[in-house]
């Protein structure tokens, strides 16, 4: 019984992490209809920035996290303004090729700068180990992830639903032409959203170094996970990707624990079945228009 609860807890932490990593992609892929396979590269950038700050320069872990966000967002906005912007109107094939190219470049570049082995971020002692809560083993680090990601999710939902920027974004996504007719600067809204999504991915990358492992091949290894979250979750709100992330996280952790021999094909099969059953995702409307 307790092992089930521990697994559930780990699965939730894993799922939350996936959500933070992938929700930027939910916006670019789901809402802006841009196939960005290089999303993992932004996450990796955040992870490596955090690693360098903490391990080499001795920053405290919690001070490095916001920096991971900022640096990924900065990279994101530079690339968006210089390169991505030109490709919004291109075919999906062009977008796929372009972002695969970027991914290859990022993998080789990080390999060149930091070496190909897995890196670890030195965690403060307060985050290590686990404690018992009514007999259920709770990892401190995973608890922190749940707290941070949970707060972020609530914050995102509030921003999207309540603020002026949120309604602008929703308008720009629903009908870019009508929105720009109403005086909304659509490219600016998209650029800002893109950068924010990259920043979140960077934060997720920094948080995930401990759980998912951080090495130069991160963008390729986890690309499929991000895509699953978005395609399965649909894109009508952030609730869809959120639930999809949790489902994926719990399913993956449980699959690896209870049927270790089946390995990763629990989730691949799950994804294919869901996509056959509902090509537009479990929750919400179509991703591609």
């Amino acid at each position, binding site marked *: 019984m307790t092992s089930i609860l521990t697994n559930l807890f780990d699965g939730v932490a894993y799922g939350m992490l996936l959500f933070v990593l992938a929700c930027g992609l939910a916006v670019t892929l789901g809402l802006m209809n841009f196939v960005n396979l290089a999303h993992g590269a932004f996450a990796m950038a955040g992870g490596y920035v955090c690693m360098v700050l903490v391990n080499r320069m001795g920053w405290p872990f919690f001070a490095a996290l916001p920096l991971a966000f900022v640096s990924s967002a900065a990279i994101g906005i530079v690339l968006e303004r210089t390169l991505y912007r030109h490709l919004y109107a291109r075919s999906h*094939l062009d977008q796929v090729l372009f972002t695969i190219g970027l991914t290859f470049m990022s993998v080789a570049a990080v390999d060149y700068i930091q070496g190909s082995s897995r890196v670890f971020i030195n965690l403060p002692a307060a985050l290590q180990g686990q404690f018992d809560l009514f007999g259920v083993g709770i990892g401190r680090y995973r608890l922190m992830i749940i707290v941070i990601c949970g707060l972020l999710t609530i914050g995102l939902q509030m921003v999207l639903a309540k603020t002026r920027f949120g309604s602008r974004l929703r308008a720009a996504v629903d009908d870019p032409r009508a929105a720009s007719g109403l005086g909304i600067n659509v490219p600016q809204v998209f650029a800002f959203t893109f950068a924010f999504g990259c920043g979140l991915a960077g934060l997720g990358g920094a948080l995930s170094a401990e759980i998912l492992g951080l090495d130069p091949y991160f963008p390729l290894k986890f690309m499929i996970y991000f895509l699953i979250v978005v395609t399965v979750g649909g894109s009508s709100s952030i609730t869809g990707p959120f639930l999809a992330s949790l489902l994926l996280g719990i399913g993956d952790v449980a699959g690896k624990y209870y049927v270790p021999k089946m390995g990763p094909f629990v989730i691949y099969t799950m994804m294919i079945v869901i996509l056959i059953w509902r090509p537009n995702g479990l929750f919400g409307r179509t*991703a591609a228009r």
Partner: protein
Amino acid sequence: MSASSDVGYHAQRKARWHFGEAAFWLIVLACGFLFPTRYLIMTDILRLALFAMSLDLILGYAGIVSLGHAAFFGVGAYAAGLLALHGIINEPVLALIVAGLAAMVLGFATSFLVIRGVDLTRLMVTLGIALLLEALAERFSNITGGTDGLQGIEMQPIFGEIPFDMFGKAGFFYSLAVLFVLFLFARRVVHSPFGLSLRAIKNNPLRAAAIGIPVNRRLIAIYTLAAFYAGIAGALFTQTTAIASLDVFAFERSADLMLVLVIGGTGYLYGGLVGAVIFRMLQEVFATITPQYWQFWIGLVLVVIVLVGRQRLHRWVLYVPNLIIKQVAGRKAVVAVPESDS
């Protein structure tokens, strides 16, 4: 002349063999005699060309974007490896066909998943199938050899007559023969009414359906055929290198394949062949400059190609040959890459 016979006339004229095409194949054949020390890399290029031609059939003619074409390559590779390893079918040509059929069965089964949904769903499903097969191959390591791959494959002579030699000479001519036969068949297919209907579907599925083309059946057919081709390419890989390992399913293989086709251009069959040559040359050059980080430059090539625009790039590349043709033959340029995908 009525409109329909007009269309038929143009289609027939396009289907006729050009002088340039014959010259192309003669040059390829001549390479086999001119560079006797480079058989291994040339065989590699031929395999890649066949594989790229397979993707061209679905991407260039039917407009299906696939990120997991390595799935069929891998199935063909393992099928050929297992057949040879356990001595089930010793004759290479027969084994090749059986391996291709194995991939074809998989292609047929998965085509029903692929024709559903839009681009994005297709990307995901094809990628998912390739990853699934890779995971399966790793799981059933007692059959596939796991991460070590299939080892100790010994190939019997072709037709019981021509043995595979260590310099790869037999392997090269064997691969060339297979490629040429399959090319002839593909050429016949894409210029048939069936091939023309595929182009119609690619340009506008809705209109194609409206004029009575059974869209889904055609897509299933071409996807299955492409899977057969990819399976043959995989089987050639195993037969000429005598190994099959997990990386036949790797995502990088599917991604590289896209690059090959993008370099060469889609939708005229020669794209895969030309692209394979250029891609391997690029890879060689990058690998000699930076052995470990050649992937960076490959990525850069992809980014630049997309940013410049594939059509424009092909126009630039063909500018000089077209100028020469114009001067020599005194007519308008004939070497042109047809419109690539939408």
